[in-house]
């Protein structure tokens, strides 16, 4: 089962809406709370990243019996050095974004922590694609 959501860059008030609606769906699918919590946290971080850094983005969610695959594709500045961006505390967020309580430099590392596999590809000045996979049965990893 697939669904698609749009994210508008800069709209912090709506960051987390996609995570909330995915959470409701996971609840109805009777997915283990611990698993769904990780997915929701990772997706929330991904949403905030797009809102804080990119112009717009699309979240594709694909759920099957084994796993949940989330692909976040954005149009934005891209990430020049992915390895550096993965470091905890590294952030390119503007002071205004930080003032709102975002941009602590934990987004990508939190996403990695809360998913079973994470792939990032990026083209500077074009955009970034983050792919998160989480297995529904924790022992299937």
């Amino acid at each position, binding site marked *: *089962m697939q669904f698609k959501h749009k994210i508008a860059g800069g709209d912090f008030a709506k960051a*987390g809406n996609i995570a909330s609606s995915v959470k409701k769906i996971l609840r109805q699918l009777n997915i283990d709370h611990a698993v769904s919590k990780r997915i*929701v*946290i990772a997706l*929330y971080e991904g949403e905030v990243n797009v809102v804080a850094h990119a112009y717009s983005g699309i979240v594709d969610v694909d759920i099957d019996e084994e796993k949940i695959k989330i692909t976040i594709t954005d149009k934005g500045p891209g990430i020049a050095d992915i390895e550096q961006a993965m470091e905890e505390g590294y952030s390119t967020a503007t002071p205004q974004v930080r003032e709102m309580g975002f941009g602590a430099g934990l987004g990508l590392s939190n996403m990695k922590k809360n998913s079973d596999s994470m792939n990032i590809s990026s083209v500077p000045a074009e955009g970034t694609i983050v792919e998160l996979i989480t297995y529904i049965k924790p022992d299937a990893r």
Partner: protein
Amino acid sequence: MQDKNHNRDFHHALAVDNDLCIGCTHCMTVCPTQAIRVRKGKANIIVNRCVDCGECYKACPVSAIVVEQDDLEMIFRFPVRVILIPSVLIGQFPKKIMATSIFNALKEIGFTHIYEVENCVDMVLDASKQFMLEHKERPMISSYCPAIIRLIQVKYPNLVGNIMKVNPPIDMAAMYYREKLKASGIPENEIGLFYATPCAAKIAAVKSPVGETESAVTGIIKMNFLYNQILKFLQRKYIETEPPQTDDLLSSRGIVWSLTRGEVVHSKGRALAIDGIKNVNDFLENMENEKLDHIDFLELRACDESCAGGILMSGNRFLTVERLKLRAEEYRAREDDKERKLTEGFLNINEHGFLGNIEPRPMGSLDEDISAALKKMERKRRLMCFLPGLDCAGCGAPDCETLSEDIVQRNAQISHCIFLQQQMIKQNLLSQEQAIRITANIWGEQRLEKNCNKMGAEDENN
């Protein structure tokens, strides 16, 4: 009467009186857990979803939602008849009616002892402190409001582990007072403890307790019933007797405990108080988002203005709050800050202070099996493409999404939607007669007939 496995089999204090129910949509659309459907012109409560919050009771235009209570005559089976009263009982009377007059009226009604449940609040505070130290989950959610515990069990099962499993004041007070009476030489079987409840959820909590095997309370008397009885006695002449002692351990903290912020003021760290079930629902829905992180304690109450706004309360809730705050100030003026009012010798925290396990009882899943659930979810999403999405409740379910779930769970049909009915008739998939039969099945046989007795019609008052 009670099932041993009370976590699965719920006792509900709310029921529909079919003689009064007119089969409208008011209760159904306000229910925070989508627990009501209309069938054959009557509201039906789905017991596994109901949390006894009482929103339906407030919304019903014809008072068809009823709250059970034990028969007042039942108290006379016991030589010692204790009425356990929450502080809001006094709060709902106008200030000119003194607490002692209220207590005397309660004695006239037939109670031999009167005890205020908030007497044991310092014990609750100590148990809470200990629980916070021994458990790392944050935020901790107060166990005070039974409707909130039930809401979490059915709608937010992953938060069950965050409930602070401390016995609420009513249970502590019942246990304490029973022990105290026993210690004064009264045999246990002669003691009946009756609780004057401001809401339905507390009745359900007494009749099928969560996290404890048996309630210490013998029976329940509804607050609105007692309010009328008290006023009736106060109208008459009666002999002024010695006022009973009702507050051996009562403090200013206890008097306002049942009001909004009554608990959070004692919390160390970051704490929030939220009242009103809709507000609580919205908050819990967002709780997993990072934004709401780093909160230590949550005081969540189902009713607006907490227990002062209980569905069985008679006075104006804001005046009730005012009177209780004034009463607390009077107590505060003669209190020593460091003094704790503990039930030493009768109760001890480790034995009486805590609740047992609280089970999650999730209601929302489409199927236990993931592949079946996925199929149902796909079907549900496809159905939503066709349903009108205006949540008119014309199908007998509260909104389109609930109808789509009922359809995939085989509890309803596509033709229940009055808009899709039109389409089906146009495409010759349904006859006009069939459509009328469907309407009669949901809304009752007489629904399409002329009836001038309904509200706003010609013979409204007949």
